[in-house]
Each structure stands twice: as structure tokens, then as C-alpha cells.
């Protein structure tokens, strides 16, 4: 064989990779001690983790679950683990966790928020996971009314009539030719059914015990505000983003104005407007539920951010996608729905989920206007003379609960990205 011509005589068989590439040893060498810098970082991080655990684990474990006040708890810990040992007083969580979860919801009715939450998971699952039968989406559509009725109670006829109104409206709307007429039919039927509901209640009173908004609190409140805000802010954000990128001058101006105004104002300001100012503009005597007002404000706030996140996704699409959709004769809404949004939303998933997580955590701000969310409750628990001075345990619990929800959202977004990755080249 000389240097320039070469012909292979036999084909090489496949071999397994060298051992340094496989097994735990190979993995560690590759990922933890690949270079001097890498090794130093590994050692430093490991030290930090060990130090942190050495401080926090004793505090977490050398604790009391049974004491009835902070001072009693401290005594027990020093009795059991010796003088000067600092341990956690988890007993406050044991004593108050129901309150942290449900606020002042009547305890004999706890099944209602629990059922609402379980049904929420059921309603979300067909939306989140395409492998779940599509027919369940019908339940997802009805769920807001079921959930509302379960939480706030009262006559069943109100929510029922609205659902019936929608159903009749959608059914009747299919026989109408123009979209405007379709919407008109829908609104009319919902309105009529809602008017009828009052008579139905007098004729056949069916209902469960009504609950005041003031009785709701804790994570029940956070999850209610958070979920409603999340579910509503996505479609509103999409519409705002489309409006902002549209050719229609007036629509565009309104969307830009709205987004910039809402983004330029702190959420707390909006919440104060919701809690105090809004009542001034209402006709006297109207009782506009505070939670509802807060939900509206939180939704509007998140929608503005959502709109910008989605606009980023829209802008990332090449013009060719719009042109190809146009060239095939798809009208604006069809090309948006079938071609543009599926791609733009996919690009925006990380941003969208960040906004969701931000919104969910922002629900703690409602404690400032006097709603008893987990933080508001913590403040009131700390004001109790028994638990005066307790800090880490309560806030640690709140943090853990929020972390569970937010981490779940984050994991879901990663799952979704990976799943959609398949179609991405």
C-alpha cells in the first residue's frame, strides 16, 4: 500500500466503546473530572452542598411536631437534644396546615375545594396531554362552571343555565351562516338562559351552602387566582400579540397602548385599584366580588407579559410561513390557527411557562390588600401570641408548596418541549 491509493479488503466489525466511556466511572471522569477546572468546581460544589446540609439537616430533624406554642416547642427541643440546640418547630405546620390550605373555609365543607382540585386535574389533563381521549375536552370546557359552583356554592341554576346557554348557542350557531350572527346567537342564548335561572331557583331550589369570598384563603386562594389567571391570560395574550402585529391601525394602537400601560404599572397598584378604586366606579349597591376583581387584574397583568412573549414567537417565524399559508388560500384566522400559532407558541413555551410561574407567585401580593393567601395567613399566625417569633418553618412550608406547583409547571414545559422537538428537524 503506498501513500495515495487505498482499497479496503475487509469491512471492520462494530466494537463496543472503550471502558472509559461507559459505566459510572466513565461518566464521572467525563462529566465531573474532565479537566482541572472541572475537578476544582466539582470539589468546591460538593463542599458547599455538604456544609449546607450539615447546617440545615440537624435543624430540620431535631425538631418538634407536637408542641402547642413556640416556647413549649423550644423547651422540648432543648430537653430532648440538649441546651442550645436550634431545631424546627414543625408543630406550627401540624396545627395550622388546614388553615394554610383552605383559609377559613368551613371545615365540614373541605371536600368541596378538594373535589374542585381533583376535578381541576381531570379537566387539565386532556389539555396538557394529547394521549388522553379528546372527548374529555368537553369536561374541560364545562369545568370552570362546576369549579365555581363547588367553591362558592349557592344555587346550581346560575352556572347550569350559563352552560346550557352556551350549549344551545353553539348548537343553534351552527345553523347560522355568518360569524357575527353566530356570536350574537351565542350571547343571546347565554343571556336568556341566565335570566331564566332566577325563576328556576324559585321553582326548584337546588343548591349547596354558599361560601363568602372572605372565607377563602390559603393555597385555595392562590390556586384559584393562579389557575384562573393562567387559563385566561394565554388566550388574551395571544389576541393582544396578534393585535399588536396586525395591519389594522386602530386595533394595533389599542393593543400597544394596553400592553405598555399594564406593563408600566406595578401589579400592587393594580391590586389597590381592584380593592378600593374600582368600587367608586361601580353603581352603588353592586357587590362585585373582591376575588373576582383581583383575578381580573392579575389576568390583565399577566396577559400583557404573555402578549410580548408570544409576539417574540411570532416574530421568530420566517415570513415565508405566512406567505405559504396565504398562497394556499387560507384566510387570516385559519392561517393563524393552523400554521402560525402552533409554531409561535412552541417557540415561546419557555417564556410562556415563566410568565405562568411568575403569575402564580405574584398571587402572594394579594396579601397586601388584605386577602388571606398563604403569606397573609402566615402574618396572622405570627401575630398569634402562641407562635409569635416563628419565621423559617412557616415561610419554609409556603415556599415548599409554591415550589411544588412551580416545579411541576417547569417540568411540564420541559416535557412539552421535548415532545414537540420531534417535529423540529
Amino acid at each position, binding site marked *: 500500500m503506498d501513500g495515495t491509493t487505498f482499497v479496503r479488503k475487509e469491512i471492520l466489525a462494530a466494537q463496543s466503546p472503550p471502558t472509559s466511556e461507559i459505566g459510572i466511572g466513565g461518566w464521572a471522569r467525563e462529566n465531573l473530572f474532565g479537566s482541572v477546572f472541572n475537578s476544582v468546581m466539582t470539589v468546591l460544589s460538593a463542599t458547599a452542598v455538604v456544609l449546607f446540609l450539615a447546617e440545615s439537616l440537624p435543624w430540620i430533624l431535631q425538631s418538634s411536631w407536637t408542641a402547642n406554642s413556640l416556647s413549649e416547642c423550644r423547651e422540648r427541643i432543648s430537653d430532648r437534644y440538649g441546651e442550645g440546640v436550634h431545631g424546627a418547630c414543625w408543630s406550627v405546620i401540624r396545627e395550622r396546615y388546614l388553615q394554610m390550605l383552605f383559609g377559613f373555609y368551613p371545615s365540614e365543607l373541605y371536600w368541596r375545594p378538594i373535589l374542585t382540585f381533583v376535578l381541576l386535574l381531570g379537566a387539565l389533563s386532556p389539555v396538557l396531554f394529547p394521549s388522553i381521549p379528546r372527548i374529555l375536552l368537553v369536561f374541560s370546557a364545562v369545568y370552570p362552571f362546576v369549579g365555581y359552583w363547588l367553591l362558592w356554592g349557592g344555587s346550581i341554576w346560575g352556572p347550569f343555565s350559563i352552560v346550557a346557554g352556551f350549549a344551545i348557542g353553539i348548537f343553534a350557531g351552527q345553523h347560522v351562516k355568518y360569524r357575527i350572527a353566530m356570536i350574537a346567537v351565542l350571547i343571546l342564548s347565554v343571556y336568556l338562559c341566565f335570566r331564566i335561572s332566577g325563576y328556576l331557583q324559585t321553582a326548584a331550589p337546588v343548591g349547596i351552602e354558599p361560601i363568602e369570598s372572605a372565607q377563602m384563603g390559603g393555597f385555595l386562594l392562590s390556586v384559584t387566582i393562579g389557575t384562573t389567571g393562567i387559563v385566561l391570560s394565554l388566550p388574551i395574550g395571544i389576541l393582544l400579540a396578534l393585535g399588536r402585529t396586525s395591519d389594522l391601525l386602530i386595533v394595533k394602537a389599542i393593543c400597544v397602548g394596553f400592553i405598555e400601560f399594564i406593563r408600566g404599572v406595578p401589579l400592587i397598584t393594580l391590586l389597590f385599584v381592584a380593592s378600593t378604586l374600582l368600587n367608586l366606579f361601580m353603581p352603588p349597591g353592586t357587590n362585585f366580588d373582591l376575588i373576582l376583581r383581583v383575578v381580573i387584574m392579575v389576568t390583565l397583568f399577566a396577559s400583557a407579559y404573555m402578549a410580548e412573549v408570544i409576539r417574540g414567537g411570532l416574530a421568530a417565524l*420566517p415570513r*415565508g*410561513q405566512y*406567505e*405559504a*399559508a*396565504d*398562497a*394556499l*388560500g*387560507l*384566510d387570516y384566522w*385559519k392561517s393563524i390557527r*393552523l*400554521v402560525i400559532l*402552533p*409554531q409561535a407558541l*412552541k417557540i415561546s413555551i419557555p417564556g410562556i411557562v415563566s410568565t405562568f410561574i411568575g403569575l402564580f407567585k405574584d398571587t402572594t401580593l394579594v396579601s397586601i390588600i388584605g386577602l388571606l393567601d398563604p403569606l397573609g395567613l402566615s402574618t396572622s399566625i405570627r401575630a398569634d401570641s402562641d407562635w409569635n417569633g416563628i419565621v423559617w418553618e412557616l415561610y419554609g412550608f409556603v415556599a415548599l408548596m409554591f415550589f411544588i406547583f412551580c416545579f411541576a409547571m417547569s417540568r411540564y414545559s420541559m416535557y412539552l418541549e421535548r415532545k*414537540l422537538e*420531534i*417535529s*423540529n*428537524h
Partner: protein
Amino acid sequence: MNPTAEVDALGNASIPKPGEVAIVIKDMNKWFGAFHALRDINLTVYSGERIVICGPSGSGKSTLIRCVNRLEVHQKGTIIVDGTELTSDLKNIDKIRSEVGMCFQHFNLFPHLTTLENCMLAPIWVRKVPRKEARETAMHFLEKVKIPEQALKYPGQLSGGQQQRVAIARSLCMRPRIMLFDEPTSALDPEMIKEVLDTMIELAEEGMTMICVTHEMGFARKVANRVIFMDEGQIVEQNEPEEFFSNPKSDRTQLFLSQILGH
């Protein structure tokens, strides 16, 4: 719908008889801001005709064919496609767009849909064809462009030539009466150009009305009825391919041809 159009076995209107007028462009002008991109364009295309447009970069070739399905809006003059004048009336525009297929330089397939779904989308949502029928049509045309085995793949998993053939199939699924091609092969490697051109030649042989922006002169010689040379937003020369290539009249055409054929 054209009254003389016949109906084929699949229930769709077939290509109108040759000799009918398919597109009339009259005194058409187009500006981008202050820039006069198309100047006094006059062009009549008959059914079954294959027209190749060439010219230097920036001469307005793309703009011209994009005006035909109103991806660009002209400001002066008239464009009549298949008897319907292009005005700002959205109904007319959507009707014309569904009758006129277009293939782009960069394919513009929808990356989130499989090849098959790409082909089924518009028939289902624009033509309201039942799913099953749309699928059959899509498979029919994917076979025609010789890639039925790629039906369930995503565009990102296909080669450029395959993608362009899918794009052609996607347009054909709408049963267009006119096809526009904007440099369909210029983003492709040489070995893929042939497969796309073969597809287009086959289409031409079936009598499809085609306007094709391309610099593939072999293709132009083989299928074009007319070659149009554009420069600075104007039609500079128009002739049968033989005459056009062997005996270009205008200096600009000669210069252009010597540049693209010369090396």
C-alpha cells in the same frame, strides 16, 4: 368557475382548454415606498402556456409573480386572474389564491406538520374536502412527485429536493389552474435540481399553466412557450425560447445571457 371547464374523475374542474386567457396584466405598476419596482407591465398568459421569467437580481421577477396572487399589492393597472380582477376584496383574493398554486425558493413547508398533513391542510380547510378524500388526493400527488414513502416524515427530515417536491405536491393538492414558481431550484444542490425540474417538466407536459422564475436555461428551452427577460422592473424582451436564446434582440438580454451562459 369557468363555464367551459370540464370535470374530471375526481370531481374537480380540469384545466381549461388551451387558448383561453388565464392571466391578464395590464399597465401594472408597483412601488415599494418611493422605489418603482414594477413599471408598466403588460402580459397576457393563455391557459396551458408555460412562461419562464429571467433577469438579473433585483429586476422585479419575484415581485411580478407575487403580484399575481397578491402576496404583493400593485398600486396601478389591473391584474385579472381566471376572469377575476384582483382588488382589495378579500373574497376575490382568497378565491384566486386557492386557484393559483405557488412554490417558493425556500419551499416554506410547515415544519410542525408531516408531509402528508402539509398536503392535506389547505384542501380540508379551504376547499372543505372530507379528510379521507384529502388524504387520498395528497397521497396521489405525493406519488406523482415520487416521494409517497416520505408521507409521515416532517419537512426537517427531508432533503431540499424532496422538500421542494413536497411543496409542489402541496400546491397541486388544491387542484390549481395556474402554478407560479419563484426560483424553485436556486436553493438546491446540483444533484437535487434535476429531480425538481423533472417534476416540473412532467407538470408542464400535462398542460398546466405555469409561470416560472428560473435561471435554468435548459428547462426554459425544453418547456417554455415564451421566455421573458426583465430588468429594472420592466419587461425588456419577450420571445420564443429558440429565438430568445439564439438571437436576443436587446443589448441587456445579450449581456445577461452571456453572463449566465458564459461560464
